[in-house]
């Protein structure tokens, strides 16, 4: 392992003119001061032409000329400035951003057109009430048409495209009635204008688009924010692999650049980036993320290791057998796909409403048309009444009702430390009646810690931790987590495989095995958890024994009892040993628990619950949970989870606290209630408005008032979705442990 250089080449995008571009996710940017320090510091590097911080997304974009500097130098400079930075590939995000801008452009065009047409319409309405002459009115209508036609066709594209796709797939979504209404309204209004009639509905058509685009944009904004946040966290976790290339150079590459046959280097304390076979070296590995099993396993040449497992000791080289998006067992992948497929068939509330709404409205309009014809009206009057019916039953309220409530609720959850992958999870979350927890990494903390930390005086622990920083031994590393920054004693001597020693103010301190600290084995206190490891600490003539193992999350018990109080049934499904699961289940007073389950068995258990009519919320983090997360009615995953689980879960818990699960459930109930109220408000509005339209009393003025009135009411109601959202105090565990871990 002589020549180890990091190469971030895979993250660099070449631009024209020999410029190179790199995006970095940066830790610890909070204010203008940080922003300025970074931009000035990086701009000072040779050849750098651009250094621009995005404070909202905590990103830095750097561009430089040719070979004047390198990503490694930039990252080094960032570290020197006190802002650890991690390169990441913004590829997937770029698409969302483009979509975002397209919607915003449509929204701007619709807003411009609505405002200008309204200006003309208000003049016509007031003119109609007084003495406008027909020529002026015709002129105003023509100018409106001139604005409305191109603007409507442009701003309506998101709806037309989606409606077209739906019809092509022989189904109906909300965009079909929207598109029909917009196109028909515009066409009928042009006809009215050509006939020099009193009423034209250009304003209604554009206002309809404007309101709906607001709803659509809110939805999109939420998805992008979630995505950006998740991407930053992934970059901070440093999900790259160190690949040993044929030229003997070790390069840092993104996971997507790995392919089977590559050789990767994994040092102690790192996770395996891909499935593979050990080719050189031996180490103890912790497979708890993969199997749920907490005892370390030995890995020797020729043995398979799986992505997500943690290397506890020693350097090893692994020949990759499955990589890229296939970094997990084939079986898990297959199960995952099947489960996700089943889930995509579930209908969202908005789609269900659309399925009900579209045929009813179209039939009503048709009935109005035929009815008026039969009653002896001329076909033109009958057609205008049918169009008025379509407009007044406009799905504005429906289109806004659900996204607005989702945005408000997920915004509140975001502040409480929970990121939702989709807004639709709120609907499913609200239906949940059973919560299933994984044990390892979910109920317990993902990293090992000192179980008896509470019984040791704080000062002693801090001094032991300060000493522990000098050692690379896995147990010492656990103790070192409790150290204060900059507390490393000056002179430390490490006795390999035994412990570390230092003397401060003439007092001898030792941290290590019992024999190194001169303790007899029978002097050692009995262990609480037989599978925990022990490490001894001597300070002068006082001795302490730290017990190191899995700890429950701080608020696990509190969360479990809160969930119970809400009438939810609880279960623990774990791949770990029976005693380990039992002790956790007893500590948390959960009666239903299953140990030693394989991923297939976990799914089978969820299947049985489903057959019994239960709606399950699965909370888990391991590779072995991924299929179960995807199969469950709703699912959450802590941020420390493996990639696949995060992708399979509906939401991510950011902090170290499980309380986010309770917060999610409460907020989902509230949001669901608000969405229901909104739908009922829309229905009520239609019940009043439709008869008026069918009877032919609707004028463009009434249509405009009714439409904006109903939209404003549902939007205001949606704001209530945050009313009972949890306070921000719960987010105190932020930034998440995973990020802290990556920093250290």
């Amino acid at each position, binding site marked *: 392992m002589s020549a180890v250089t990091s190469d971030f080449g895979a993250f660099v995008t070449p*631009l024209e003119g020999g410029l190179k*571009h790199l995006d970095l996710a940066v830790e610890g940017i909070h*204010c*203008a001061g940080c*922003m*300025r320090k970074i*931009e*000035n510091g990086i*701009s000072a590097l040779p050849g750098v*032409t*651009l*250094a*621009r*911080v*995005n*404070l*909202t*997304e905590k990103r830095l*974009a750097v*561009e430089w000329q040719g070979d004047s500097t390198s990503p490694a130098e930039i990252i080094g400079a960032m570290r020197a400035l006190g802002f650890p930075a991690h390169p990441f590939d913004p590829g997937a995000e770029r698409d969302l*951003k483009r979509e975002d*801008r397209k919607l*915003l*452009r449509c929204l*701007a*065009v619709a807003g*411009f057109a609505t*405002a*200008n047409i309204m*200006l003309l319409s208000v003049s016509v309405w007031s003119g109609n009430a007084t003495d406008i002459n027909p020529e*002026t009115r015709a*002129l105003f209508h023509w*100018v409106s048409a001139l*604005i409305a036609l191109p603007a409507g066709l442009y701003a309506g594209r998101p709806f037309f495209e989606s409606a077209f796709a739906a019809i092509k797939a022989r189904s109906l979504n909300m965009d079909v009635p929207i598109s029909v209404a917009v196109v028909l309204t515009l066409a009928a209004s042009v006809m009215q204008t050509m006939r020099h009639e009193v009423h034209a509905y250009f304003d209604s058509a554009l206002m309809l688009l404007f309101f709906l685009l607001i709803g659509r944009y809110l939805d999109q904004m939420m998805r992008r924010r979630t995505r950006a946040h998740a991407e930053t966290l992934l970059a901070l976790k440093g999900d790259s692999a160190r690949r040993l290339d044929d030229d003997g150079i070790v390069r840092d590459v993104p996971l997507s650049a790995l392919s089977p046959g590559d050789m990767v280097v994994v040092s102690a304390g790192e996770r395996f980036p891909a499935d593979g076979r050990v080719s050189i070296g031996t180490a103890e590995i912790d497979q708890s993320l993969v199997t749920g099993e907490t005892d370390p396993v030995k890995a020797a040449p020729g043995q398979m290791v799986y992505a997500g497992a943690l290397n506890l000791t020693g350097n090893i080289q692994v020949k990759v057998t499955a990589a890229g998006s296939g970094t997990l067992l084939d079986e898990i992948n297959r199960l995952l796909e099947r489960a996700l497929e089943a889930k995509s068939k579930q209908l969202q509330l908005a789609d269900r409403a659309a399925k009900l709404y579209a045929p009813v409205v179209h039939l009503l309009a048709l009935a109005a048309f035929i009815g008026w014809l039969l009653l002896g009206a001329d076909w033109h009057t009958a057609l205008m009444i049918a169009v008025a019916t379509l407009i007044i039953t406009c799905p504005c309220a429906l289109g806004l009702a659900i996204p607005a409530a989702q945005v408000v609720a997920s915004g509140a959850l975001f502040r409480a430390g929970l990121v939702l992958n989709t807004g639709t999870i709120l609907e499913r979350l609200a239906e949940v009646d059973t919560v299933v927890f994984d044990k390892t990494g979910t109920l317990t903390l993902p990293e090992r810690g000192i179980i008896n930390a509470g019984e040791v005086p704080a000062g002693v622990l801090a001094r032991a931790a300060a000493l522990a920083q000098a050692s690379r031994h896995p147990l010492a590393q656990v103790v070192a987590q409790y150290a204060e920054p900059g507390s490393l004693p000056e002179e430390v001597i490490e006795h390999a495989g035994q412990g570390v020693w230092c003397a401060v103010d003439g007092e001898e301190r030792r941290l290590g095995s019992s024999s190194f600290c001169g303790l007899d084995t029978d002097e050692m206190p009995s262990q609480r958890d037989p599978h925990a490891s022990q490490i001894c600490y001597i300070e002068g003539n006082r001795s302490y024994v730290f017990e190191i193992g899995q700890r429950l999350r701080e608020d696990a018990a509190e969360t479990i009892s809160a969930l119970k109080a809400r009438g939810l049934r609880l279960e623990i499904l774990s791949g770990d040993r029976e005693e380990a699961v039992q002790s956790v289940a007893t500590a948390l007073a959960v009666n239903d628990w299953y140990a030693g389950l394989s991923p297939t068995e976990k799914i089978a258990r969820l299947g049985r619950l489903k057959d019994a009519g239960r709606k399950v919320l699965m909370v888990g983090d391991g590779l072995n949970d991924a299929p179960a997360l995807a199969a469950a009615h709703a699912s959450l995953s802590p941020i420390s989870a493996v990639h696949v689980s995060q992708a399979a879960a509906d939401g991510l818990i950011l902090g170290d606290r499980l309380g986010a699960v309770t917060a999610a459930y409460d907020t989902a109930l509230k949001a669901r209630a608000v969405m229901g109220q909104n739908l009922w408000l829309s229905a009520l509005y239609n019940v009043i408005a439709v008869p008026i339209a069918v009877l032919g009393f609707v004028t463009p003025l009434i249509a405009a008032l009714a439409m904006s009135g109903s939209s404003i009411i549902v939007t205001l109601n949606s704001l209530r979705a945050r009313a009972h959202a949890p306070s921000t105090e719960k987010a105190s565990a932020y930034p998440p442990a995973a990020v802290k871990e990556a920093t250290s």
Partner: protein
Amino acid sequence: MNIILVLLPVAVGLGLLGLAAFLWSLKSGQFDDLEGAAWRAIMDDDEKPNRQPDA
């Protein structure tokens, strides 16, 4: 009423101007970092301002 023939194009033209200004600011990335932009306004920096990244 002939004044309308002048006022209508003026009104629509001003609206279009506003729309164009918005689309331009969107395109030039001014909506990419709303939080940062707020802070940049109060940074008293004599050095040359940084160019916007090409998105």
